[in-house]
């Protein structure tokens, strides 16, 4: 899976994009987020309040937990502020 981070999530984590393989531990959005939070204090902190994190799978917003497979594109970003 391709994982993308935007705006302050990108700045805070220092990552724009990474590749993560699906596994017994990482198989849906919730388990992916849980795994990301184990990677260090800045990850823990960035994902502590999921009310300010938006999630898109394959460039579509998701608001519930959905299954993930290798090849998916998952993006994490703050509420949008364009226009």
């Amino acid at each position, binding site marked *: 899976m391709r994982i*993308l981070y935007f705006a*302050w999530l990108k700045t805070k984590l220092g990552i724009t994009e990474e590749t993560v393989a699906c596994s017994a531990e990482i198989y849906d959005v919730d388990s992916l987020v849980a795994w990301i939070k184990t990677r260090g204090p800045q990850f823990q902190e960035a994902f502590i309040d999921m009310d300010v994190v938006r999630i898109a799978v394959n460039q579509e917003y998701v608001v519930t937990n959905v299954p993930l497979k290798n090849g998916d594109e998952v993006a994490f970003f703050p509420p*949008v*502020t*364009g226009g």
Partner: protein
Amino acid sequence: MIRVQPEIFDTGQEIKRLTADRTDIGAVVSFTGLVRDFNDGSDVTSLTLEHYPGMTERELEKIEKEANSRWDLQASLVVHRFGTMALGEPIVLVITASAHREQAFEAASFLMDWLKTKAPFWKQEENASGARDWVKERKSDIEAAKRWKG
């Protein structure tokens, strides 16, 4: 039609291009969003817009399609810039053309409200002291988008 680009655009030229040689259009509404020097009280000197290439286009296309399904539009255009822009420069443009003015007004207003809460753009403001801050989501934008339901 939608376009996502770093280049500056000219509202007048876009209106002309969209309505050229048409005699069935009675009303054209344009909305242009500009970089202004104050946002929520802080002194802004420039603005940088990040976006999510691919998803941005998809979202804008969905929003434009929705506007065309709700209102009887003869033409519509959404242009949104990304990258760094100076004070006074245009950021976003919405144009709607219809036989009737209420249709054009409502559709343009809707396009802006949905774009503000759905299109994946993020603003970073630079102020006089060189500090860069990510702009926070506005409650008023969320409320405005709710007016249109769906």
